[in-house]
């Protein structure tokens, strides 16, 4: 056989021929593809959640005992249980449109704004709940971007809360535009310090940050026990801090009991800041490079230890700020149950948001909204609040194991670079 050498088209490169519009269209659909798995994961989580709701409902179980005599009744009971639960969840997290309409009507009719405020309470409460999740989720995401697993967000959150509470209640007579930023800053600084220590220790000794941050959590738990029972205790006998001065409070948009406050917009601003910092600055460039390939980063002249410290400081600072917004915006004082797992939930949020600031904001919105609506679901539909934990847990599992979701829905794997979250143990 002779060689058929085509010499006519030396530069006829396929890539140059590929129409540009196609490339751009693909770029747009790439975004959809990234969202596809989380959305399907959420859907699947809710479907399984519905099954659990049905199975834990006595009326449904009773109806199924009778399935062969009255299959319709059994199905109706199932449907009713699920609709009641998810309906209450929706009303609890977004609000009931009927109530909102009635609220508006009664405001025009009587001038009384209370029904309207109560009608928007669920939605505003959801946004208020979301706030610390956004900030703490960003904290963990920044760590992930540098290849660090910051399990210490919980401790940093608590320390941040205590610091800002201290500044908030111990200083009197300052105007709000000084006192509030000062209190916020104190929270961020406290968390930053609590994050910088493990970052530095890791860089210096090579100790694994997971171990150190867990230890830092324990130290912060005990420290706050001690502070709440001693130096920071309010007069009286309860183990809690005094209420912060009103000049240090994050202003609320509506009267009590609506707790929606400036903190939410502060959190959104921080998400923008983190995006800018990670993707538009030289420091962010280094942090991401160190996270993606520390050997390559070192080769390119980057200082690994310095980046660990910077990333952990920023991470801790964000977690501390989360604690600060919670104290200054929502609780106004710190007691023992101040943080029940914000820092740990935020790990899940960062995972769900693929460590991208926008993803974190979306994940936190979802997370906080579900949490917030769960109260109403529990109270009105009698569905235990743990159902929400189950749904959230399932969503995380599915997002962490996207192959499973792809397989259920038979989606082909797409070649999106998987995010490096953290490198394994040791090394």
């Amino acid at each position: 056989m002779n060689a058929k050498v085509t010499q006519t088209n030396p530069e006829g490169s396929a890539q140059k021929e590929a129409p540009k519009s196609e490339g751009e269209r693909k770029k747009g659909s790439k975004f959809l593809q990234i969202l596809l798995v989380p959305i399907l994961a959420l859907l699947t989580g809710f479907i399984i959640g519905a099954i659990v709701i049905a199975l834990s409902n006595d009326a449904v179980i009773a109806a199924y005992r009778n399935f062969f005599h009255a299959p319709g009744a059994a199905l109706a009971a199932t449907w009713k249980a699920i609709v009641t639960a998810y309906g209450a969840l929706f009303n609890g997290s977004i609000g009931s449109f009927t109530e909102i309409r009635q609220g508006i009507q009664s405001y025009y009719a009587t001038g009384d704004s209370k029904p309207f405020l109560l009608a928007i309470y669920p939605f505003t409460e959801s946004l208020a709940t979301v706030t610390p999740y956004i900030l703490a989720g960003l904290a963990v995401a920044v760590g992930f971007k540098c290849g660090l697993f910051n399990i210490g967000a919980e401790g940093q959150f608590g320390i941040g809360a205590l610091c800002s509470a201290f500044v908030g209640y111990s200083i009197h007579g300052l105007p709000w535009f000084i006192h509030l930023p000062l209190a916020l800053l104190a929270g961020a600084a406290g968390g930053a310090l609590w994050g910088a220590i493990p970052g530095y220790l890791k860089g210096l000794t090579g100790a694994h940050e997971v171990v150190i941050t867990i230890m830092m959590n324990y130290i912060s738990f005990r420290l706050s026990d001690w502070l709440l029972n001693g130096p920071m205790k309010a007069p009286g006998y309860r183990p809690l801090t005094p209420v912060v001065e009103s000049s240090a409070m994050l202003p609320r948009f509506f009267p009590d009991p609506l707790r929606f406050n400036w903190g939410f917009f502060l959190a959104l601003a921080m998400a923008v800041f983190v995006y800018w910092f990670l993707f538009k600055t030289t420091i962010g460039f280094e942090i991401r490079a160190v996270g993606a390939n520390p050997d390559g980063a070192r080769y390119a002249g980057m200082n690994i230890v310095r980046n660990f410290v910077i990333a952990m400081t920023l991470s801790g600072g964000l977690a501390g700020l989360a604690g600060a917004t919670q104290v200054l915006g929502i609780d106004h004082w710190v007691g023992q149950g101040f943080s029940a797992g914000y820092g740990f939930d935020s790990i899940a949020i960062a995972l769900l948001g693929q460590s991208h600031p926008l993803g974190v904001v979306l994940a936190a919105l979802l997370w906080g909204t579900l949490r917030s609506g769960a109260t109403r679901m529990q109270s009105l539909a009698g569905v235990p609040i743990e159902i929400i934990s189950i749904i959230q847990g399932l969503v995380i599992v599915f997002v962490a194991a996207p192959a499973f979701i792809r397989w259920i829905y038979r989606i082909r794997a797409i070649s999106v670079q998987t995010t490096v979250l953290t490198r394994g143990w040791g090394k």
Partner: protein
Amino acid sequence: MPPVLELRGITKSFPGVLANDAIDLSVEKGKILALLGENGAGKTTLMNILYGLYKPDKGQIFINGEEVTIHDPSDAIARGIGMVHQHFMLIPVMTATENVMLGVEPTRSGIFLDKAKVSKRILEISKQYDLEVDPQACIGDLPVGAQQRVEIIKVLYRQADILILDEPTAVLTPQEVEGLFKVLRSMVANGKSVIFITHKLKEVLAIADTITVLRNGRVVGTVNAKDASQEKLAAMMVGREVNLVVKKKTATPKDVVLSVKDLYVRDERQNLTVNGASFEVRAGEILGIAGVQGNGQTELVHTLTGLAPVVRGEISIMDKPVRHSSPRNVLERGVAHIPEDRQRHGLILSFPVHDNLVLCTYYQPPFAKGLALQQKVIVETAEKLVTQFDVRTPNVFVPVSTLSGGNQQKVIVAREFSRPIQLLIASQPTRGLDVGSIEYIHNRIIEKRDEGTAVLLVSPELDEIIALSDRIAVMYKGKIVDILPAAKVNKTYLGLLMAGVKPSEALEAAPATTQEIEVERVF
């Protein structure tokens, strides 16, 4: 009889790239087909399709004349197709036996692993095909060549009839390549078929029966190995004449740029791997370090670039010591480094091409103003470099991991050459590159030399060292055993030194220099 494997009209596109364009290909039973093509021509993509890793957009696959659809690798294995990837898929902490049985574990009474059975079968296979492997050895302890043999056994154990090898020789020493060829020959003698990807034309001519050449995702032609020559194949691949001989003027060395005196370095396991090495590189010359891999070259380069600490001895660049310099410090003194392991050191794979092109300079103007990265400048610069160095990529925004192996290497070269440099340290700069790119990079290195850059070239390829260097230093067990002019070097003498023979004894066997030789590139 129909061919064992036939591909018809296989087409596959990635965003912005038509990687395979209506490819037809056939493999006869008991034959070796070599797949040739430039970097990014689509060879790996085509093989990944065959192995079920990608789904083709169009096209048919026939095995023994019967049309098949391959959904995933397990489908491929079931159809008798096996693949040895360029990056091995072995688990280092497991033994050869355990790695081979992974995924197809045989059991006794349904629950107990039957390792003995696997070991026995491995020994059978290794005897049949001359594949020397210790079934009990831990993979992490084996040299690369032996690991590759384990990969091949793994494929044969699954009873593959068609074996795909993607650039298997890129990581092997010349001796290991010989061993591999022996195995391949005995495999085809046993009725198996092989698809073999490489960039080295000599190897192709030595082993293949037929050769199919791809360019830009299309089949350019298929020739019989008997009828082919290196020149002809090179021209088919690149679409133009390729100069197979390195042409360069005599060097005019000037001041000493790099001087290394009595250097000692430990590796990660604390073994002394550089053992009192001394040499100098002058501006305007290329010093080649020849030596079998693992004689301290890696650690030497790491120390020169600030990645590993000096135990004892002195390094100075432009008369300034570098003993405690950080990598950045070294880079800022005008040192460029093409690392030996491009994926581990040279690139941040998940980063886009443009970020990788400024990986060492992102913090300097004009790429940054204060803290803020100047995205526009970076992208513009990157686009210029991509054109200048002919990096085949749909655009500069795709992750560098989606580029073909050779194009990844070009990104590194483009980055390092685009900075103002006094000293170039190049470790295996043409590993995995196609003939055209090798020509290009060789010419650029010589150009740099002629501009007055000092070049330290480290490569286990003797041919490349001889072709490029002005002087050759032979490294053995962490020492520089001899330094001699490259122009008239005697290959036999060099070989003896590399094998550890003392210069005085080597001289008895062969003279250090011969007549002026015409040096060919390594392909």
